[in-house]
């Protein structure tokens, strides 16, 4: 069922910019159109790029926002997972809870 939804109408998560748009809905209570425009503005791309995995791969690599590791493409030298969330917080100008706690617990806060 989830597979059908992702293919029928899902943004694509971190294959695209779905996770970033979701963060604006959660953190700033933005409706979809506003959230997409905000993320596109922060990334310096068009709203249409946000659902496009080809466009978003380049943007995510350039800004260190994390990409999917899989068979033919791994990037151990790039930011990923918790590291990527530091960059997402900075890029979107929003607090990310686990990032703030990470900083505080290792003395970076």
């Amino acid at each position: 069922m989830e597979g059908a939804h992702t293919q029928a109408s899902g943004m694509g998560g971190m294959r695209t910019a779905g996770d970033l748009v979701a963060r604006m809905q959660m953190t700033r209570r933005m409706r979809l159109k506003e959230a997409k425009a905000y993320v596109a503005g922060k990334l310096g791309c068009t709203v249409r790029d946000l659902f496009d995995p080809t466009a978003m791969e380049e943007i995510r690599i350039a800004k260190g926002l994390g990409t999917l590791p899989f068979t033919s493409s791994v990037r151990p030298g790039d930011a990923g997972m918790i590291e990527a969330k530091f960059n997402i917080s900075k890029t979107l100008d929003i607090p990310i809870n686990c990032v703030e706690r990470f900083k505080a617990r290792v003395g970076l806060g």
Partner: protein
Amino acid sequence: MEPKIATRMGDGSLVEMTRSEIKADLEEGTQQAAKRAKAEPLTQDELDHLLDIYASSARFTAVDMGDEVVLSNDGTGTKHIGNRVQDLQTFEQVLGVDIVELWQIDYSYKAIKTNVAHEGQAMKIAQMLCTNPVQYGAMPDLGRYSKPDGPIPNWSELLPLMKVDEARAAQVEACAMLVEDINYVADHMVEAGTDGIDMDTTGAAGDADFLAGLTACRMLREKYPWLGIEIGMASEFVLGMHGQLEFDGERLAGMWPKDQLRMVQAAGGSIYGPAVNINTGRSTAWNIARAITMIKPAAEIAEIPVHVNVGMGVGGVPTCVYPPADATSRASKAFVEILKIDGY
């Protein structure tokens, strides 16, 4: 003779209907919902659009490129692939959902309270390994506080005895306990790094259950201005098990999606999740028209994201263990294109 089109019933069974029969079901579904929820029926353009989606023999359908929405995906994972964090990673990386939700199989805040430290540890590990937002979810589940599962007299036993005052007092007492437990679990999850808290199937035990969710939401919003708070409903209508409970001076019993949304917004929720249950004896066309009619007034006035519950018995997706992709994708497309919703 008019050709038959393969389509689904609300229980998932495959049936054949003509375009005229599907059209009639759409019209009947919207009229039934409009009458029940005191909402406007769908316009002719909207019904025509639904007919195009549902009177198609395609095995799959989808929205136009650029119209994609956010998948918050409550109850993420199967619980049977690897461990729970691997389950979240699978949904993040293989399926491509936008938010993942950590949860335990006893999906109730009261049950989680007893092992919250372990749940928090799982959240911390998930936050280290996932890039997606990770929220924590469970049901408010007010019934758990009544005897024999909890300490409070059982209002479902008191009401048939005409002990109305006692039944109401019991619900108010349980509501206070539930608010405390949601806060207790949420505080621990925030400490562990969560991005959000999901109160799923809120209102399942009626207006006191909904009141607990709204009250906890407002308290969490005051403590954590950045926290994602999703309130997903149990059904289209708030049952008046108490009947007189109010939030911000408004009676909760009898609220339909538009008023539910207003309450969630006022409480400080980030995402509102309407739920309209399936009638298994009617077609998916009838059910989708009914669901969209009931949710439309909420979608029109929403100032926060609306993530419709669309799965396994709600939102036009059949009540069955393996919802067919043909029915799921049609519901997915219908909600996005008719209601301009923000997610699922």
